[in-house]
């Protein structure tokens, strides 16, 4: 999976840099689109995945889901932070400012960043155990509800300068661009999936090690 992620990502970036047609309006700076938007969508996917695992935890009570939900939220936060960084760079090249409150998605990611940073504070403040797992899960569920609500709020509070690429009439770009975008998105999702599985395996190993140590000390 790691190899697949690397191959698809490299292919995607090659397509984005060399093959995709130049945007008539924005010129070469538009190419960051192929990085920025897939990262943002991957972050949403990770948050959604984390909330799904949280729901499963509350539903079944199986503690296995706690670690999965936590790791997914962790991934989402990393990709969300990257979204803020790449979005900021894009804003700088397009509009000459590092930050624009008019850009809905960026503002949304700032709110989400604050929200999910608090997730980690909450989690590390709680004593280890099923209580922590449940409270973290409920908080993660609040997160996925907050995403559309905040989006609506920003839309209500907005002034429009963000280029809206995806409208109700489908994506507003040429076929080549869309293909490149899809390759990049697939690569980014694969990358997130690889990181997720790696981190999960590491965390599980950690837990197992701790259990073994404890049983050694007891024995």
């Amino acid at each position, binding site marked *: 999976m790691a190899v697949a992620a690397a191959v698809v990502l490299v292919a995607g970036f090659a397509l984005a840099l060399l093959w995709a047609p130049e945007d008539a309006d924005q010129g070469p700076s538009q190419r960051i689109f192929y990085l920025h938007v897939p990262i943002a969508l991957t972050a949403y996917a990770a948050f959604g995945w984390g909330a799904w695992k949280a729901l499963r935890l509350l539903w079944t009570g199986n503690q296995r889901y706690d670690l999965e939900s936590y790791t997914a939220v962790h991934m989402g936060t990393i990709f969300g932070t990257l979204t803020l960084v790449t979005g900021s760079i894009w804003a700088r090249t397009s509009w000459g400012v590092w930050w624009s409150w008019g850009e809905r998605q960026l503002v949304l990611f700032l709110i989400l960043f*604050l*929200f999910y940073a608090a997730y980690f504070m909450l989690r590390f403040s709680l004593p280890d155990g099923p209580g922590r797992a*449940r409270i973290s899960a*409920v908080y993660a569920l609040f997160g996925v509800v907050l995403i559309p609500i905040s989006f609506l709020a920003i839309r209500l509070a907005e002034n429009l300068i963000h280029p809206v690429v995806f409208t109700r009439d489908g994506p507003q770009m040429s076929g080549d661009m869309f293909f490149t975008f899809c390759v990049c998105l697939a690569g980014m999702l694969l990358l997130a999936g690889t990181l997720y599985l790696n981190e999960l395996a590491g965390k599980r190993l950690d837990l197992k090690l701790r259990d073994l140590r404890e049983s050694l000390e007891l024995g």
Partner: protein
Amino acid sequence: MTYARDVVALARKDLLLELRARETLPAMLLFVLATLVAFRFALPADASERASVGLLWVAILFTALLGITRAFIPEREQRVLDGLVLAPVDRSAIWLGKVVATLAFLAAAEVVALPAFSLFFERVTWSTVAAVALADVGLCAVGAILAAMAAAGRARELLFPVLFLPLSLPILVGGVGAAVSDDPGRYLAFLALYDGVFAILAWASFEYVVTE
């Protein structure tokens, strides 16, 4: 009907405690007044009237923060929550009781804050009053469950604002929008949507927060 009775009993307990100890409400009242005065000096002399509306909403948000922060801390410290969880009541009733009690405190603080605001700054419109009423429900619904989460941890008072502020930002948008926009209906509808969605979510998930 036993559910409603449980909720009333739980809310009544909090209100009685407040009447005897008088801890939260005086603090909230003084805080909201002090904040409004502080904002008077934070605004430059030539700031527009509209800016002060935003400050009213920040004052309301922070007052709610102050009032709700400690909502579940006595419950944890005095181990009341253990008793409540063991009691034969639906656990969401604990949440609803707390929402009713904090809502009463917040409304009482605003009964003072809104006239004070119209005295110091500009007249409060009916749409602002409606928005405040709707916002209170959302703030207390979300605040009560987050306060229960924060009280379970070590950081407690420190943790609650960090959890609460990102979730209450949409309320700020709706409230300010309703106050300054020519078409407040959209913003009021948004606040009602927020209340509905988060109240249902908090009501359904509260049980998991308090179960040990």
